[in-house]
């Protein structure tokens, strides 16, 4: 049985302008200790997917319209606030994008670090502090006996993300959701933080979901990747398969956007246009307006189908037609 099994999750926001279908029928599963990537542009619904599992989206206006999310046998979507509170920070932890704003500036590091222990375990304050010092040492913070008494503003961004990781893992959760954990960091620090997450994952046997828009991050850490676009998955495959033979036009376009893979001295490739307005999604294939191949897109919702064993994609014939988008002149801006 997988650790997490999400089926047909639908999260909609009911706003004055209309219904925003932020997540519209998403399914995925994750084994114990596995690593899953969810990739997509800003606003594709990847964060909302994960936040809704823990009841962290504002409700209202958000509403979970359907689906199930079985975590170790219990449906998270049916737990309710008090039930979820026992899961958050204990069995499923999160780290976020901007470490500069994610730690409370008014509270000492130690108070924030030991809080999950005090909330979810029988540990007393003295022992919790000892564990906090050990946890800080484990994430590579020097002199943890002293720094544990510091305030967040005395730390750099990379150090704070280390503190966030220590805090998220202090209860040894079964699942860690990392929401763009490296986006706000320097490139040199990014690598260190990714290595740290991998290292801690190995030590604790935690499963990890990486939410990111950076395919390079995914290629480095994930076993399996889901590519998300306009609230739906457009492709899902093991990492090496996805990178070697991307099937969907959007995945190929994302891959073509990685600066390191492009020719030097040429303008960088970008995907033309912007993600569609979720209030007024195009009928049928949502990627059609931005795709290089203009003809032959489905005008009904394309099915998410297994195109090769273990390799799933949104089955729109035009999107699946290999057209080498990075070569197409009209796409190079």
């Amino acid at each position: 049985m997988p650790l997490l099994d999400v089926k047909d999750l639908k999260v909609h926001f009911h706003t004055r302008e209309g219904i925003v279908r932020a997540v519209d029928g998403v399914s995925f599963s994750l084994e114990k200790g596995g690593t899953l990537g969810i990739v997509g542009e800003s606003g594709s619904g990847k964060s909302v997917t994960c936040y809704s599992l823990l009841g962290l989206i504002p409700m209202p206006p958000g509403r979970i319209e359907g689906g199930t999310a079985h975590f170790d046998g219990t449906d998270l979507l049916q737990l309710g606030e008090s039930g979820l509170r026992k899961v958050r920070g204990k069995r499923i932890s999160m780290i976020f994008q901007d470490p500069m704003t994610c730690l409370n500036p008014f509270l000492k590091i130690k108070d924030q670090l030991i809080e999950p222990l005090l909330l979810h375990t029988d540990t007393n304050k003295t022992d919790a502090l000892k564990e906090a010092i050990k946890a800080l040492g484990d994430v590579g913070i020097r002199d943890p006996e002293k720094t544990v008494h510091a305030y967040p503003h005395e730390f750099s961004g990379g150090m704070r993300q280390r503190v966030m990781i220590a805090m998220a893992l202090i209860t040894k959760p079964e699942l860690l959701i990392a929401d763009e954990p490296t986006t706000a960091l320097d490139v040199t620090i990014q690598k260190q933080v990714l290595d740290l997450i991998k290292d801690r994952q190995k030590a604790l046997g935690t499963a990890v979901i990486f939410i990111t828009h950076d395919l390079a991050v995914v290629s480095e850490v994930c076993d399996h990747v889901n590519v998300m676009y306009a609230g739906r998955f457009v492709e899902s495959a093991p990492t090496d398969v996805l990178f070697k033979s991307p099937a969907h036009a959007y995945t190929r376009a994302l891959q073509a956007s990685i600066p390191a893979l492009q020719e030097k001295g040429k303008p960088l490739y970008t995907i033309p246009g912007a993600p569609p307005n979720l209030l007024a999604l195009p009928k049928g294939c949502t990627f059609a307006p931005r795709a290089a191949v203009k003809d032959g897109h489905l005008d009904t919702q394309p099915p998410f189908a297994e195109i090769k064993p273990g390799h799933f994609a949104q089955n729109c014939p035009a999107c699946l037609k290999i057209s080498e988008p990075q070569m197409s002149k009209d796409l190079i801006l």
Partner: protein
Amino acid sequence: MDQTRYILSRLGQSLLALFCIITITFFIARLAPGGPFNDDKAVPAHIQAKMEAYYGLDKPLPVQYIKYIGNLLTGDFGSSFGNKGFTVAEVIAQGAPISLAIGLGGLLFALAIGIPLGTLAASRKNTKTDYFSMSFAMLGICIPTFVVGPLLAIFFGLRLGWFNAWGWFQPTDWILPSLTLGIYYGAYIARLTRGGMLEILGQDYIRTARAKGVSQFNILFGHAFRGGIIPVVNFLGPALAGLISGSFVVETIFGLDGLGQHFITAATNRDYPLILGTVFFYAVLIITVNFLVDLLQVWLNPRLRAARA
């Protein structure tokens, strides 16, 4: 060490401010038309001259100023013109306890009303609770104290008979005047608290706390309160100044012989020594309160502590 130096420099600044306030007040009071002995009835010129000579008002202004400052340094505030037979110090000693009592009482009510109301409204943003609390706060701000005061006096004083509707006789007589002041300032504090708490509740680190499994109550009071209350702390200085020096209307409504009364009548009667004495008293009070508020802010906000070190 740093702390001592900071306090000493603040003390020096305060003394300088105090000196400026006294000087400016001295000359402004003198520049205002009229004098202490201009009465409805015309006073014969030779009598007026004699009275002015008695109080030293016939000398050139700079001479009077230097003499006043000299006396002030020895702790002598002079005699009140309007309250015959009383020194300024005696008038202040008599009025200040009343004003301080209703002012501090007012602050107590204001905080007791404003902070819970504002926190409740922020935690239930855009619900009926929020709208109800904020409508109440708006009413409190809009209805002037000279309406609220008499209404409280009629209801609690005359109808229910719980308190005296007028005067300063019993130990409970501070309650109605303080409540009158407290409703106005409490309404304002409720709005400040709501704004401050909402700002903090929208921060990323509140989401972090929720993701850790912290309950709504602990998010409000463990994680958000210290930051959310900062606008209220900033407002405490001006609020206390307004509560203590601006209590003239409330003192009038409830027939209290407080300092607010003396302050206003001294100004209208050109009672120069009493004007200066009350201004001096209020200035010391406000400077002290602002200093305490600064210390409180630093204590609340660790980032400020780092900035000073």
